[in-house]
């Protein structure tokens, strides 16, 4: 065995996990759809075409049309862009915020007391209600959705990083590094952060999933991205009004939403089983 092998052993373990493979496969389809949305959509998703409203699925409109005559297939394909943008950015921002807050709290006892009370307080709000309230203050828009969801989900990541840091900082090698005179920041980057990567990846995939779902809920409630922007939540909301005549309007964006959620949950479950076997559900 070559020397580099153990370093990549975890990658091979992850790649051999069935949940990870299936999850990544579905996610890849959604990402591809978002990247080539212009190519694979058959109509302009924003174009209103009242004479063709509420058409059932056909060769012309694969997934039918909505109450304004917009093509549902094109709306779903373009909607994936908003979902992925919100999901991915929220994941990155919560990871960044979580690492900064978690490191600070895990490392400095005084800061810990203050930061953890704030995190407890933020986590006392039902997630979706806090997001709604933040949207009420900031107004509709993609970046406001990302801001609201990042505020809502950062405490979870911060708590996770903090608990990881509390364990790692007591280990012998960190004590040794400290005895050798390494600075806090050096220890944090060199010894502690690498140990947080596993939990962060697992948590990140779940937050990605939550954020996509929460974005859709906010859109559905009419307080997320503006109704003119094609997003899955907005399309499901417009389908609600015509559920009696045209079930397909809300059905297909919901399927896309479910598949995205499924892919990220599978990915998260698989990563947890391989990266942190202690948390494995038997």
């Amino acid at each position, binding site marked *: 065995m070559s020397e580099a092998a153990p370093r990549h052993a975890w990658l091979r373990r992850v790649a051999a996990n069935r949940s990870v493979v299936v999850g990544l496969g579905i996610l890849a389809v959604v990402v591809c759809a978002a990247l080539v949305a212009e190519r694979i959509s058959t109509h302009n998703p924003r174009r209103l075409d009242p004479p063709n409203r509420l058409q059932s699925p056909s060769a012309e409109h694969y997934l039918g049309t909505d109450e304004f005559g917009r093509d549902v297939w094109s709306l779903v394909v373009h909607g994936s862009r908003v979902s992925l943008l919100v999901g991915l950015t929220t994941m990155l921002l919560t990871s960044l915020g979580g690492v900064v807050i978690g490191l600070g709290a895990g490392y400095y006892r005084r800061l810990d007391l203050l930061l953890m009370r704030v995190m407890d307080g933020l986590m006392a709000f039902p997630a979706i209600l806090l997001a*709604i*309230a933040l949207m009420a203050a900031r107004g509709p828009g993609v970046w406001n959705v990302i801001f609201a969801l990042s505020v809502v989900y950062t405490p979870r990541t911060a708590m996770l990083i903090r608990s990881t840091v509390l364990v790692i900082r007591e280990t012998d090698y960190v004590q040794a590094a400290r005895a050798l005179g390494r600075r806090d920041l050096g220890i944090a980057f060199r010894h502690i952060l690498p140990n947080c990567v596993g939990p962060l990846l697992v948590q990140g995939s779940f937050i990605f999933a939550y954020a996509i779902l929460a974005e859709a809920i906010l859109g559905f409630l009419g307080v997320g991205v503006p109704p003119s922007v094609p997003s899955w939540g907005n399309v*499901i909301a417009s389908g609600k009004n015509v559920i009696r005549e045209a079930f397909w309007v809300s059905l297909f964006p919901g399927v896309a939403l479910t598949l995205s959620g499924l892919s990220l949950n599978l990915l998260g479950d698989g990563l947890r089983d391989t990266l942190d076997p202690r948390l494995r559900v038997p």
Partner: protein
Amino acid sequence: MTPYLLRRVLALVPVLAVVVTVVFLLIHLIPGDPVGVMLGPDATPAQVQATRQALGLDRPLHEQLLKFYSRVLRGDLGQSYFLDRPVTTALLERAEPTLVLTLASLLVAIAIGVPSGIVAAAHRGSAWDRLLMLGALLGVCVPGFWLSLNFIYLFAVRLGWLPAAGYTSIFADPVAALRYMVLPAVSLGFSQSALIARISRSCMLEALQQDYVRTARAKGLSQGAVTWIHAFRNALVPVVTVIGITTAILIGGAVVTEIVFNIPGLGRLIISAVLRRDYPVVQGVILVTATAYVLINLAVDILYVFIDPRIRYE
């Protein structure tokens, strides 16, 4: 027990203080001039100035915060601009449907989740286990509000078994209330049952591996007696925790479900308040729900002691 209880209640104080501060700061997150945003473009400068003074927004921030604390402590959540009544009155009027929906869906979630988890654990690796856990995975991934819409289409529009939307108070007409509540409670409860099922399964698996279970089996007790009497009681503590968490998630889920089924609860109250920029109502709803969440967690912590006598808080 009493010192533990006292300490536990005291620990709530900082959490609630943060909650109130966050609710207070909400107004200050409004971009630009909050009063201008609230009153809309037609307001005269005099009206803007008067409202600003009435809300105390012309005072320094710390003074506003202190005033907000003292008001909240006295149970005064302000006045709704749009409903023309105190926020607390509006909240009380709308609390019943949300409470009924939350409790009904909690019952559904427990009724589905706990038995599924136990059956899956008792028959680990069997087809039942796989089927139930696949169902639980779907429950986690299928968005509750979308499931509600599909239920409406299937059971109300197609089959005509149940009303598509609406609400009747359980005190006014229990039978009609039940008919209205079935679809919302099942669709909200199903989504949440998944988490309960997963936790119940893993806790039962752990309990079933303990020595006392082997002893019980060795004594010749039936599978049912071993599962339910010996293992289940010991698996209950984490299950109760997750039921507590579920209740909090259900409060959030109820908001969305109310919009789908046109139920006049706190969810519809906050959404219409957001759309009308009626900020005191928005603040009131999230303050009340967060407080409810904190209190539910307290109740769960106290319940532990009764469920598991081994837990003794010194």
